[in-house]
C-alpha cells in the first residue's frame, strides 16, 4: 500500500522484487499474488480507518489517504458488504469534515461518496452538506460546479430547489459544457422526481432550448432529452419541435439525432394510432407524417452509423408501412449485416428478423448476407440469421439450409438450438410437403448430445407436427421409438411411450412398435416400465389380433418388483383375459369389438368403467385440477353430503390461450429472452377466483355455487368522478351483480352506495341489494345486487338501466376528516346487459368431432345469417363473442394467408348454466360481393330449447 502512495522509487522497485521472492517462499498459503489496497477488505477495519476523517491534521496532510479510504468504503459494496444506516450516517458525518480540505481529488471523492450514501442515510442528515455544496456550485472552478450540481440534485427537495433555482438555471447555459451537461442531467432527474420540482424545471424552458444550440455535442443531447421530457404530453408542441430540428439541421451530436429519430418515430406511431395517416402510405398522409417519414429517410444517409441504424430501425417498426417505404431501410440493414463490428451486425440482424415476420419477401434479398452470418463468431447473431432464413427462405432452399444448420448446430449451446428447433417446426407448418426431410432432420438432432430441455423441445416439436401434419405420424413414431432405445430422460421416455400407446394402434401396422415398447419393459427403470406396460395394454385393447402375443409379454411383468408396473400388468392381464374369453379372436374378420378396456394410464378416481378409460379423462388434468380447486373454494363444499363425481364438479372456463407465447417465439431469437417472458407468464398464472368476493358474504354464499363469473364490464367512462365496473356472477337460479365502485373525488367520502337497476323482463327480477358502506378517496368497494331468474321462462337478453345511488360526505383532503353530513346523490351509469352468452361457460372438449357425433342431431338447430362484416376475421371473432363459447381445434383464428378465400369452419363448445354441454359448428364465408359475410350455424345440445336459445344469440 505504501508503494502506491509515495510513488515509485528505486527503493520501492527493490521491495517489489523482494516481496515477489517472499511470496515464493510462502506460496503454500497465499492465494493472491499481489497486494492491493482493495484486496480482502473488512468492513470493520475500513470503518476504523475512516475515523481519520475527524482528525484535521490527517485530512490536511494526507488527502491521498482519505481518498483511498473513501474508495475502500465504496468498494465494500462491490464485495457485498453494505453499510447499514447507522454506519453510513457515522461515516457520512466524517466525510462532511473533508470539505475543509482544498484538495481537488479528495473533493471529487467526497462528492462521489455523498451521492452513493445519500440513498442509505437519513435525508435529514444529508441536508447539512447543502451549504457546502451550494458554495462549490457558485465557485469559479468548472469541475467543482459541475459535480456539486449533480450531488445537489440528488439530495434536495422542491422547496430547496426553488431557493437555488437561479444558479441552476444559469448553469444550464454555462459556457463550460461540463457544467451545462451536469445542470441538464440533474434537471432531468429532478423533473422525474416529483411534481413540485418538475414545475420549477419547466420554467427554464428557454434556457434549455438555448442549450440545444450549444457547440458541445453532449449538451445538445442532454438539452434535447430534457426538452422532450417537458413537452412529451403536448403533441403539437412536440411535432413543432421535431420538425424544427429536423429541418434546421443544427444538431451535430449523433446521440441527439438518435433521440430526434426516436421522437419522430413516436409521433408517427401516434399519427397512425389516431388515424391521421389513413390506410395510404406515409408519403400521402398528414403533413407531419410526410415530413416525419422524409426526415427518417434522409437520416438513412447520415454519416454516423448510430443515426443511420436508428432511422432504419424506426422505419422498419412503423405500423402498416408500405413495402416501397420499407425498402430503403432494409437496404441499409443489409449493408450493416456485413459490418466488421459485432454490435452493428447484431443490431441489424435483430431488426431484419423482425421485419421478416411480416415482410419475408422484402427481407429475402438479404438471404446471401444472412447465410454468411451463419458462420458468425457471435452465436446470437448466427442463431438469429438461421431463424430469419427459415422465415424468408423459399421451399427449395430448405434442403441446403438444413445442411448448413447441421454443421452449425453441433457447436452451439442448447438454448440456441432450442430456438432453431422451434423455427424448424414453424417451417414445417409452412411447407408441409417438406415434412419428411424436416422430421428426419429433427430426429437426427435427437441422437446428438444435448440436455433435457433441448431434447424435450425436439420431442414436443415432433409431437405437434404429428398433430398438424398427420402424414408424419408413422415416420415420426418410428424415429421416436429409436430415440427411446437410448434415452436417458425418464420423463421423455414415458411421454413417448404414452404417445405410442395413443397413436400406435391406429397406424397401419401396429405390430412393429411392440418390440420397441417391450424392450423398455426389460431394460428400463420402474417409471418407464410402468408406462411401457400401459402402452402395451393399449395395443392389446385396440388390436385384438395382437392380444395373444401381448398377453404373453404382459404376463412377464406380473412379478415385476415395482408395484405400479405389477399392478398395471395384472389389471391389463385380467381385463384382457376376460375379454379374450368372451370375444375370442377370430383371425380373418378384423371387426371384433374391442369391448374390453385395459388399465388406465393413470389411476382413475371414482369411475372404473373400462370404456371411458380408453378415452382418458373427460377433461384435461389441468382442468380437473382447477375444477376441484373451484369446488373446494365454495363454502361448505367439504361438508356437503353430495357425492363428488366428475359430472358434479363445477365447470371451469378455459384460461387464455397460449398463442401469445408463440408470437413471441416468432420474433425473438434469443432463448434467454423467452425464458424471461415465460417467467413473467408464470407469475400471471396465479388467478384469483372472481367468485371469492361473493363467497365472502354469507347471504350471497347461501344462494349456491357460482356457475361462471363474467369479466368486468365498464359502466362509466374512465376518468369520471365515480368509476363503476360490474362483474356478473351467474348461479343456477340467481345472478349476483358485483359492482366495483371507485371513488376518485379527493374531498368526498361515499356512503351507502348501491346500484339501482331497472329492466323489463319476464325472467329476471331484482331480489335484493347489499350496499357498500363507505368508500374513501381512491378506494374501490363492492356493492351487490341479486337478481332472481325465473327458470321456467325462456332466457331472453335484457338490458337494465343503472343508477348509482349514494350519500356524499365532504372531507378535508389533507386530514381525511369528515366536514359535513351525508347528503344523497345519484349518478347515471351506462346500461348493463344480460345476454345469453353470460350463461355460457367457455369449456373446450378434448375431441370435438367425437363429441359432436355423440350428442347427435336430435336437438340440432340450424340457422343461416348474413352478417354485416367487411372481413371474415372480424365475423369469426364476433360469432365467438356472441355465443360466448370456446373455439376448439384452433379454429378460433383464420390461418394467415387464408383469410377471405375459403369458407372458415369454426368449432365451438361450451357449458350452459345447469351443466348442459353445447356444441356449435359455424361456417363463415365471405359472400362474393362486399356486402358482408354469410354464416351457417348448427348448434347441438341435449335440450332443443337450449340449442335454440344459443342459435338466437347471433345478432
Amino acid at each position, binding site marked *: 500500500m505504501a508503494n502506491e502512495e509515495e510513488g515509485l522509487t528505486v527503493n520501492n522497485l527493490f521491495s517489489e522484487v523482494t516481496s515477489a521472492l517472499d511470496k515464493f517462499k510462502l506460496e503454500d498459503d497465499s492465494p493472491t499474488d499481489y497486494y492491493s489496497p482493495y484486496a480482502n477488505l473488512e468492513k470493520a477495519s475500513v470503518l476504523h480507518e475512516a475515523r481519520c476523517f475527524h482528525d484535521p491534521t490527517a485530512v490536511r496532510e494526507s488527502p491521498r489517504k482519505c481518498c483511498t479510504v473513501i474508495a475502500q468504503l465504496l468498494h465494500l459494496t462491490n464485495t457485498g458488504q453494505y453499510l*447499514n444506516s447507522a454506519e453510513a450516517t457515522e461515516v457520512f458525518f466524517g466525510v462532511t469534515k473533508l470539505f475543509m480540505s*482544498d484538495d481537488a481529488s479528495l473533493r471529487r471523492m467526497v462528492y462521489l461518496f455523498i451521492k452513493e450514501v445519500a440513498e442509505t442515510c437519513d435525508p435529514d442528515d444529508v441536508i447539512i452538506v447543502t451549504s457546502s455544496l451550494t458554495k462549490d456550485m457558485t465557485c469559479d472552478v468548472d469541475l467543482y460546479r459541475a459535480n456539486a450540481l449533480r450531488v445537489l440534485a440528488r439530495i434536495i427537495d422542491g422547496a430547496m430547489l426553488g431557493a437555488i433555482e437561479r444558479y441552476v438555471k444559469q448553469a444550464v447555459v454555462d459556457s463550460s459544457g461540463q457544467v451545462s*451537461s451536469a445542470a441538464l*442531467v440533474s434537471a432531468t432527474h429532478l423533473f422525474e422526481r416529483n411534481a413540485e420540482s418538475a414545475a420549477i424545471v419547466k420554467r427554464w424552458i428557454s434556457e434549455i432550448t438555448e442549450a440545444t444550440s450549444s457547440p458541445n455535442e453532449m449538451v445538445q443531447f442532454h438539452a434535447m432529452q430534457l426538452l422532450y421530457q417537458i413537452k412529451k404530453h403536448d403533441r403539437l408542441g412536440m411535432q413543432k419541435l421535431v420538425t424544427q430540428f429536423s429541418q434546421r439541421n443544427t444538431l451535430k451530436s449523433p446521440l441527439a439525432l*438518435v433521440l430526434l429519430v426516436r421522437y419522430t418515430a413516436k409521433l408517427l406511431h401516434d399519427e397512425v394510432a389516431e388515424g391521421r395517416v389513413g390506410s395510404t402510405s406515409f408519403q400521402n398522409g398528414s403533413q407531419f407524417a410526410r415530413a416525419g417519414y422524409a426526415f427518417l429517410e434522409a437520416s438513412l444517409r447520415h454519416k454516423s452509423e*448510430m443515426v443511420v441504424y436508428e432511422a432504419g430501425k424506426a422505419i422498419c417498426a412503423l405500423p402498416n408501412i408500405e413495402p416501397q417505404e420499407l425498402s430503403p431501410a432494409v437496404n441499409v440493414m443489409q449493408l450493416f449485416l456485413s459490418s466488421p463490428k*459485432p454490435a452493428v451486425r447484431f*443490431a441489424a440482424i435483430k431488426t431484419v428478423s423482425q421485419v421478416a415476420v411480416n415482410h419475408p419477401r422484402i427481407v429475402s434479398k438479404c438471404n446471401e448476407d444472412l447465410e454468411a452470418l451463419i458462420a458468425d463468431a457471435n452465436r446470437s447473431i448466427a442463431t438469429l440469421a438461421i431463424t430469419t432464413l427459415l422465415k424468408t427462405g423459399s421451399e427449395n432452399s430448405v434442403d441446403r439450409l438444413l445442411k448448413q444448420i447441421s454443421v452449425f448446430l453441433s457447436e452451439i449451446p442448447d438454448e440456441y438450438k432450442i430456438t432453431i428447433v422451434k423455427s424448424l417446426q414453424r417451417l414445417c407448418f409452412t411447407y408441409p410437403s417438406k415434412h419428411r426431410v424436416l422430421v428426419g432432420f429433427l430426429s437426427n438432432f435427437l441422437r446428438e448430445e444435448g440436455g433435457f430441455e433441448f431434447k424435450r423441445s425436439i420431442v414436443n416439436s415432433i409431437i405437434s407436427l404429428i398433430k398438424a401434419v398427420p402424414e408424419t405420424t408413422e415416420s415420426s413414431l418410428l424415429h421416436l421409438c429409436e430415440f427411446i432405445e437410448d434415452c436417458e430422460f425418464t420423463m421423455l421416455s414415458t411421454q413417448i411411450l404414452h404417445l405410442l400407446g395413443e397413436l400406435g394402434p391406429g397406424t397401419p401396422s401396429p405390430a412393429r412398435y411392440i418390440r420397441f415398447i417391450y424392450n423398455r419393459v426389460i431394460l428400463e427403470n420402474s417409471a418407464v416400465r410402468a408406462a411401457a406396460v400401459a402402452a402395451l395394454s393399449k395395443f392389446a385393447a385396440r388390436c385384438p389380433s395382437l392380444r395373444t402375443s401381448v398377453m404373453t409379454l404382459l404376463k412377464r411383468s406380473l412379478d415385476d418388483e415395482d408395484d405400479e408396473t405389477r399392478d398395471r400388468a395384472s389389471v391389463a392381464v385380467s381385463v384382457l383375459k376376460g375379454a379374450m374369453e368372451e370375444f375370442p379372436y377370430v383371425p380373418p374378420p378384423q371387426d371384433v369389438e374391442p369391448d374390453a378396456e385395459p388399465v388406465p394410464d393413470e389411476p382413475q378416481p371414482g369411475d372404473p368403467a373400462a370404456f371411458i378409460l380408453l378415452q382418458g379423462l373427460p377433461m384435461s388434468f389441468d382442468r380437473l385440477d382447477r375444477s376441484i380447486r373451484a369446488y373446494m373454494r365454495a363454502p361448505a363444499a367439504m361438508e356437503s353430503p353430495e357425492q363428488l363425481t366428475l359430472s358434479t364438479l363445477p365447470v371451469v372456463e378455459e384460461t387464455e390461450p397460449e398463442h*401469445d407465447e408463440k408470437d413471441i417465439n416468432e420474433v425473438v431469437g434469443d432463448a434467454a429472452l423467452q425464458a*424471461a417472458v415465460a417467467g413473467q407468464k408464470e407469475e400471471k398464472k396465479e388467478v384469483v377466483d372472481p367468485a371469492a368476493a361473493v363467497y365472502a358474504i354469507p347471504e350471497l354464499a347461501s344462494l349456491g355455487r357460482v356457475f361462471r363469473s363474467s369479466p368486468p364490464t365498464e359502466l362509466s367512462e374512465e376518468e369520471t368522478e365515480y368509476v363503476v365496473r360490474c362483474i356478473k356472477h351467474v348461479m343456477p337460479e340467481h345472478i349476483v351483480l358485483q359492482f366495483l365502485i371507485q371513488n376518485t373525488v379527493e374531498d368526498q367520502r361515499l356512503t351507502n352506495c348501491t346500484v339501482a337497476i331497472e329492466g323489463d323482463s319476464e325472467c329476471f327480477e331484482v331480489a335484493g341489494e347489499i350496499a357498500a358502506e363507505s368508500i374513501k378517496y381512491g378506494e374501490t368497494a363492492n356493492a351487490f345486487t341479486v337478481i332472481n331468474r325465473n327458470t321456467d321462462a325462456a332466457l331472453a337478453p335484457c338490458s337494465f338501466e343503472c343508477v348509482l345511488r349514494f350519500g356524499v360526505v365532504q372531507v378535508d383532503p389533507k386530514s381525511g376528516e369528515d366536514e359535513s353530513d351525508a347528503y344523497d346523490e345519484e349518478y347515471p351509469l351506462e346500461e348493463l346487459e344480460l345476454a345469453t352468452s353470460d350463461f355460457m361457460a367457455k369449456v373446450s372438449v378434448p375431441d370435438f368431432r367425437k363429441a359432436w357425433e355423440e350428442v347427435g342431431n336430435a336437438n340440432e338447430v340450424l340457422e343461416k345469417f348474413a352478417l354485416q362484416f367487411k372481413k371474415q376475421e372480424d365475423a369469426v371473432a364476433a360469432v365467438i363473442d356472441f355465443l360466448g363459447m370456446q373455439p376448439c381445434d384452433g379454429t378460433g383464428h383464420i390461418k394467415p394467408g387464408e383469410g377471405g378465400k375459403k369458407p372458415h369452419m369454426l368449432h365451438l363448445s361450451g357449458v350452459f348454466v345447469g351443466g348442459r354441454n353445447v356444441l356449435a359448428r359455424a361456417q363463415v364465408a365471405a359472400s362474393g360481393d362486399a356486402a358482408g359475410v354469410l354464416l351457417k350455424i348448427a348448434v347441438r345440445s341435449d335440450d332443443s330449447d337450449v340449442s335454440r336459445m344459443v342459435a338466437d344469440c347471433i345478432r
Partner: protein
Amino acid sequence: MSLLTHASPPLLPKVDAILVLDSDGNRLAGKYYGDFMKAASTSSSEGNNTSQQSVEQLRQSFERQLQSKISGIVAAPNAAEVVTVLGKTAVFCGGSPPGQSGSVRVVHIGPVGESELVLAHLVEGMYEALSHLMGGSTDRNMILDNLELVFLLIDEHCDGGIILETDGHKLASSVLLRDEAEASRNQQESMAGGGKGGMGGMGGFGGMGGDMTIAQALRQAREQIMSNLNQN
C-alpha cells in the same frame, strides 16, 4: 409479437448497469441504476440488512449468467460484442481468451429496446478512457490498484443511468481533474504539470500517469516470475 414491438427504443435512454468484470466474472467495480436488479421489497431508508443481502445475491446471479455468456469472448476496444441476458442487452469491450488472464471487461447493460449501436458507443468510450487512465493496460490487478479512478470514471460517464459523457479523452481528463481544453491540446502527453486555477493536490493524480507504466511493468515481471516458479 407483443414483446418486441413493445420494446421500442426508450425515449429517455438510460443504462441499467455498468460493470467492470475480471476474466472470471468477478465484479471489480460496478454500478446498478434505477430498479434494475433491485428487489421490490427493499426499503431504501431503513438499510435493512437482509433485503440488501438479497439484492447482492440477485446481482451476483445476474452476473453469473452474464459471465456464462461472455466468458472466452474477446472484444476489441473499438468493436464491442453483444449478448442478451435475462431480457437485457449486454454490450462489452475487453476480455481474454479462455484460460488466460488479460484485460478486464467493461459491460454496459441496457434495456432490450435500446440500440446496440448506442450501447456500443458508450462502452467503447468508457473502455478507451479506462485504458487511458490505466496507462494502456487494463488487466485485473491494474484496475484493482486504481479502483478510485474507476469509480470516478463511472461517475463521470453516467449519472443515475443517464449518459453524461462518452468521449474517452474527455472522460479521462475529467477523472484526472484536468481541464477539457488543455486536455485536448495535449492529449497524448500524460505528464500533468499544473492544470489551471491553482487547485492544490492535483499532482496527486497527475503524477500517476508516468509511474503507472513502471508499476505495470514491475507487476508483469513479478507475475512472470511467479508463474515460472509455480510451474517448477
